[in-house]
């Protein structure tokens, strides 16, 4: 991680929240599995509520298997059994009033996909069809939304590729002929060419080296600002969040534990888990040893009762072992789910 990537993003005007593009209400999605007659349930997304406004980059952070990938798959309606939505709603508003993505018929769903809602998948090295030229991917994904004659469409695509420093000739290439970084940029071009209002990005930069990562992040930021889209950006890398996102939600064991504008969350983390995450970040001039966190992340198949963080929490109290803390706005724009923090702030 370079020092530069650790510098915080410049403050940006907080977007107006009244009509969020995405609002998620008490969403629960479990892996429900049957193996030789034994039913198992893994609570990957367990009661999550959040809202994302227009022209906002919302980040989700958390360690691996905290359920962040399951959460955004659920939000994108990209889940397949055994992952099922058990409860709650996911409503998108693309200017025609809020609509639950799980209540849309396949036709309506296909109509908003890519036109309004696009997705950059995890491991996006392999999302391009290996036996067809890149051009066909653009035709399949975007042509029907753009309502343009073919030559104009291709011109538009070439122009868009140029913005991502890709030559027009990549359109005639097969995926295996491109380098990893080029494939990554093609994927981003593919996800943004329709100028969608909402982009979901799942660890899009994880597989890249730091230099390429930086340029890809700059590109995503540039395209987002130019088009005024909202972005839901997931990565475990706090440095990337610091560099890119406007607001940040921290996930732990299938639940959101803290959410605030990225700057204030990093300056003043409240939840003990977030404090640990932020404290473990390298800072210029700080050479104190980093303390590790005791214990291991809980099994989502058998989560601990009460607050799921309590077995590892330095502030754990009796109530934490029995009662799950609710997510509350304890400071303006700053929501936390922690009994100890609430008491501390109240006193």
């Amino acid at each position, binding site marked *: 991680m370079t020092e530069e990537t650790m510098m915080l993003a410049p403050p940006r005007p907080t977007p107006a929240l009244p009509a969020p593009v995405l609002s998620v209400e008490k969403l629960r999605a479990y892996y429900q599995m049957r193996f030789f007659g034994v039913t198992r349930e893994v609570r990957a997304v367990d009661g999550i509520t959040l809202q994302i406004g227009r022209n906002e980059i919302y980040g989700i952070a958390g360690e691996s298997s905290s359920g962040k990938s399951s959460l955004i798959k659920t939000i994108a309606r990209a889940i397949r059994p055994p992952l099922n939505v058990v409860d709650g709603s996911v409503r998108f508003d693309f200017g025609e009033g809020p609509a639950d993505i799980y209540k849309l018929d396949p036709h309506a769903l296909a109509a908003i996909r890519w036109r309004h809602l696009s997705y950059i*998948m995890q491991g996006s090295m392999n*999302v391009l069809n*290996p*036996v*067809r030229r890149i051009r066909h991917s653009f035709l*399949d994904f975007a042509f029907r939304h753009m309502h343009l004659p073919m030559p104009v469409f291709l011109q538009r695509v070439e122009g868009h590729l140029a913005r991502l420093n890709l030559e027009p000739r990549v359109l005639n290439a097969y995926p295996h*002929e491109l380098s990893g970084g080029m494939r990554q940029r093609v994927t981003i071009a593919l996800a943004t060419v329709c100028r969608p209002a909402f982009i979901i990005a799942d660890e899009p930069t994880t597989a890249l080296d730091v230099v390429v990562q930086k340029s890809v992040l700059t590109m995503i930021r540039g395209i987002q600002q130019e088009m005024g889209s909202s972005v839901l950006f997931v990565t475990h890398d706090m440095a990337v969040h610091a560099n890119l996102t406007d607001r940040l939600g921290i996930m732990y064991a299938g639940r959101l534990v803290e959410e605030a504008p990225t700057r204030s969350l990093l300056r003043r983390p409240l939840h003990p888990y977030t404090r640990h995450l932020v404290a473990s970040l390298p800072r210029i001039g700080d050479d104190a040893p980093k303390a590790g966190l005791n214990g291991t992340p809980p099994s989502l198949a058998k989560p601990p009762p009460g607050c799921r963080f309590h077995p590892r929490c330095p502030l754990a109290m009796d109530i934490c072992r029995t009662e799950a803390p609710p997510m509350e706005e304890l400071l303006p724009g700053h929501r936390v789910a922690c009994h100890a923090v609430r008491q501390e702030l109240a006193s």
Partner: protein
Amino acid sequence: MTSYGSYLLKRLAQFVLVVFIGINVTYFITHATPIDPVEQTIAAATSFGQTSPAAIETMRESLRALYGVGGSPLDQYVTFWKRILIADFGPSLSAFPTPVSTLIARAVPWTAGLLTVATLLAWAIGNLLGGLAGYYRESRVLKAVGVIAMGLHPIPYYIIAFVLLIVFGFLWPILPITGAHDPGVERSLNLPFVLSVLKHAILPAMSLILVGIGTWFMGMRALVSNTVTEDYTVYAELAGVKRSRIMRSYVMRNAIAPQVTGLAMSLGAIFNGAIITEQVFGYPGLGTLLIAAVHAGDYSLVIGVTSVSIIAVSAAVLLVDLAYPLLDPRVRER
């Protein structure tokens, strides 16, 4: 060296190797076993009546020359290869003096036609249904097809052909069960002849196709259940690409390449099946020729058919392999 070039060279080398090993196995079986084909033939020829010892001796000499079993083992080996390379297997004993190569040339078109049509049909239908069954997992019709395919797949060609023969020969006699065309029609390219050929080909082809569909169906269904979970398919679904397009260009298109390799690998087994099918339905191809030759004790004809089979199947495999890069750009490009 381009990658297609090296692919081509590798396949050609494989072809040469297959023919080399196959012909050597043939040589080994005919020459290294303790059984003397000449004495065998004489025993068979003389078992039906008295022949004078002098006549037997003359016969022995001419048979030795004919079979190329005179001289040192090296001489024999060289002679054996020479004959195969110039496709001269000598005269047939059972249809003396017609050369073996003429008999084989007469039979090959029937086998080649039957095999090509049956293999391609089985491959196409089996893959299409298997692909659909892998993609539309919930469809009842396709599940039923799956059960039938699973039931048919392990049954050998002979049993299937035999059951078809019983059903259409005795229980419900609507199709001709023997021969390649009606004996009365003139053998030229006219409509009655073509129709008659097609009608006679239905049962032999069907027994090959039924088994073939089962095999390809099961293979394709398994492959497709993998390609549907690949990132590129999931991503295209997420992008709202039309299902028919995903099915065709993403799921099937990626699953079909291994099935082409599978086709190349199983041509030998399909050929075995065709031999048996021909025998059951009296179809005048290589299989019927081979089995008749065995019954007639026609040594040169048996060796001729075996060698030609090995070369022909290897050549067919080579052809399929050469078509493979058309489906997989990773082999074709650069």
